[in-house]
């Protein structure tokens, strides 16, 4: 279903899942009582946290997978190198 914190579509799917989970908590509270339903609800919340944590670990990625844009030093070096090839600006 995707990480609910990365896109609206994934968050919407999780909303529907949580809605179903909440309905099951309400049903169990009627059958087994409030305290049982509370522990059941807490268990569901911890499962949800587990899924989100797993999604976040994937999302953070690894240094190899990151997009490496040119950093400032590289650009400065390139500007200087091109200036040397072209010679000094007129009037100097």
């Amino acid at each position, binding site marked *: 279903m995707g990480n609910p914190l990365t896109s609206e579509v994934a968050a919407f799917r999780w909303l529907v899942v949580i809605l179903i989970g909440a309905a099951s908590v309400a049903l169990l509270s009627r059958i087994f009582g409030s305290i049982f339903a509370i522990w059941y609800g807490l268990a569901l919340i911890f499962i949800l946290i587990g899924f989100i944590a797993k999604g976040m670990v994937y999302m953070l990625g690894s240094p190899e997978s990151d997009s490496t*844009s040119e950093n400032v030093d590289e650009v400065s070096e390139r500007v200087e190198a091109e200036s040397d090839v072209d010679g000094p600006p007129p009037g100097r």
Partner: protein
Amino acid sequence: MESASIPVPHGHAEEDHHHGPPEAHQSARIDRSILGILLFILSEVMLFAAFFAAYFFLRVVVNPDTWPPEGIHLPVLIAFINTVVLVSSSFTVHYALEAIKHDNRRGLKLGLGLTWLLGATFLFIQINEYLHVGFSARDGAFGSIFYSLTGLHGAHVFVGLLLLTFANIRAWRGHFGPEQKNHLGVEVPGIYWHFVDIMWIIVFVAVYVV
């Protein structure tokens, strides 16, 4: 005078008219705007977790004989109707985003407008509930935690409405487009709105139902 032109990071000076420093090093797996709302929501989850911890401590650890205390009757039916109103608003904001993904501007405006109206209705009903519920935050631990949890959530709905106000204004002025980078102004408030809805479902079940 080509020699006097200053090269820019991506080498497309004429096309991009790019000025300033190059783009920052960033993750390839997530956009910076989405990362921002993600970190914000994580901090919000921790805030709500603190309030829920207080609620469940009172409910389970202290474990009073009656919960809610004698003489307190929560308007469960009205809260349920309010839940339906708020959950409906999640469907409308999802519809708005799907509409703009398909370049349906009318659907975007309709979805965002309905979402705002449903959110405002929720807030109006909740304020009305506070006025008629018959106890205050000073009436024991239950009163304190009830107003804290529902009030905290109400404040988040208010912030969500502000975000949706901006999204609505931008939609009516012709902003947003089908590409992902062009509808982040709808997607990011949408994620926040779903978060607010999910929190309400948990608040409703914990406080009113169980």
